[in-house]
């Protein structure tokens, strides 16, 4: 690079600039890391300690709070529900999304553009704005307070971007491969499964993260559709929990830690994929 910001060989003005900028970026790093650190140590403190010694370390390390929140407050259920809902929804997003992308990108036909536009229509529309009709539809289907309702909506939420990203990717795969397979007697579904899908694997990884993170984190739809405590997902469960224990900060910080740390742990091991996946819609 022609103008790397390096200290070595730089003039005083540039050195000062680099130093200032690094200072600003370091402040933001501290603003990210300290509140997370404080959240975790507060989970080990008593309410009294949190209020009287907000920056101090806990007097003793015990996992009683974590046990209480995980077992008695039902976070184990919330967690399992989130895993179930996200897993099933993502499975269908990838299956139907890749099939749709295949149907749009690997054939030439008149309605091609129309089908593509129908899929893409959801990319710009804020689905939240449609909550009233969605509520009416889900009620008609008899799915209020059923996890299937949020799964279906999450599938709809994930499909447009999945078709968009995957069809762009599939268009680049040479048709000759398909002809060769056809001569060997493969029918279309076999071509999709044996040839196109394996070649699409990197893009699949991308759309998985792109959709799974927002689905895992989604609050609005489970809030509206899931009422029984045993069916709630982690974000809604966390919200209920905050309503019930508003003054027990020690417990609240424990709940937050349980909600936040698994994602952080996954990120530490797969940060490259997360960054690539999450910015996939905005970076070409």
């Amino acid at each position, binding site marked *: *690079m*022609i*103008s*790397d*910001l390096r*200290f070595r060989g730089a003039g005083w003005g540039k050195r000062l600039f680099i130093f200032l*900028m*690094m200072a600003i970026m370091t402040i*933001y*790093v501290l603003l*990210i*890391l300290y*509140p*997370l650190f404080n959240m975790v140590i507060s989970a080990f403190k008593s309410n009294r300690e949190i209020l009287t010694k*907000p*920056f101090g370390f806990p007097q003793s390390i015990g996992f009683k709070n974590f046990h209480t929140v995980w077992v008695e407050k039902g976070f184990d259920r919330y967690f399992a529900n989130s895993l179930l809902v996200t897993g099933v929804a993502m499975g269908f997003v990838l299956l*139907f999304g890749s*099939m*749709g992308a*295949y*149907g749009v990108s690997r054939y030439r*036909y008149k309605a091609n553009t129309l089908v593509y536009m129908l*899929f893409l*229509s*959801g990319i*710009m*529309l804020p*689905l*939240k*704005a*449609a*909550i*009233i*009709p*969605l509520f009416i*539809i889900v009620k008609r289907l008899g799915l209020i307070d059923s996890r299937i309702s949020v799964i279906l909506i999450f*599938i*709809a939420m994930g*499909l447009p971007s999945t*078709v968009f990203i995957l069809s762009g990717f599939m268009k680049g795969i040479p048709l000759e491969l398909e002809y060769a397979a056809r001569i060997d007697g493969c029918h279309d579904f076999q071509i999709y499964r044996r040839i196109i899908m394996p070649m699409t694997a990197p893009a699949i990884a991308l759309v998985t993260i792109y959709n799974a*993170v927002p689905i895992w984190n989604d*609050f*609005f739809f489970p809030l509206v559709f899931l009422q029984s405590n045993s069916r709630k997902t*982690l*974000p809604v469960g*966390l919200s209920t929990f905050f309503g019930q224990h508003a003054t027990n900060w020690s417990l*609240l*910080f424990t709940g*937050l830690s349980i*909600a*936040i740390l698994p994602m*952080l742990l996954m*990120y530490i091991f797969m940060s490259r994929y*997360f*960054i690539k996946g*999450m*910015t996939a819609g*905005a*970076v*070409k």
Partner: protein
Amino acid sequence: MDVKQLRKAAWIIFFVTPGLMIVGVFILLPLFMSLYNSLFSWNQLLPVEFVGLENFSRLFTKYPYQQRFLNALQNNLIWFLSTMILQNSVGLLFGYLMSRSIPGYQAFKRIFFIPVLFSIIAVGFLWGLYLKPSGLVNNFLGLIGLESLQHAWLGEERFATMAIIMVNIWRWVGFPSLVFLAAIDNVPTECLEAAHLDGVGEWKLFWKIVFPLIIPSITIITVLTVIGSLNVFEQIYTMTGLDGGPNYSTDTIGTLFYRTAFGSVDAGSPEIGIGSAIGVVIYILTFLISLISIRFSRSREVQL
């Protein structure tokens, strides 16, 4: 049509139908139902009679709808402008610094993205605790001797909205940073080197060459900011509650819409007609503002 053509058509239908059905039922149908429902008066979940645009005229002109609606819309505008000015320009600066390999940029990049992954709910509740009168923020101000700056950040009308926006920016700055980083990394090195050899300074290099070339990603971030600002809901829900307190000062279209649709607050019972009208307004605003942003940047876009 011969057999081959029919077979092809059957396969296409096989591949696209499952996806199209779900998109149709859960995205397109609700869109048209919103438009349709907004033209009726409602009794709970049942349409009563066709009233034309009356729901819209009540929303725009009648008390208390007009006051609530304009107040919320104004807050959404504040959200949009603050996010553009504070978050996206800091993002552009960070993205630029990282693209110029500032010492430690690999670590900065990874750490900046951490809060982006967390649910807004967890982030909102966490900072909600920190911003309480006896919370960490005020404790910190006391620690460094700035007691005079301590406030009930979420309890005072003049601070609440800005406090919530700052929390949202805290969570989200990493996103534009990394999008802009990727965009600047894509600017061909030859361009920069040629200009550099001609003696163009760093500042001019950025505004005259880098900036025009990354306008597509600026458009994308702008459109995402529009959609994000119009969809603000969880942030308010977790930090100042569904009412958008204190005294509606943090109310947004999202929270107003939710209260109207599910009747949890000032309206008492759900008002499907007015609620649908608000939904339609959100659709139209999203569509129009996105279109304007795209048009605006198209006219400034430069191609190599």
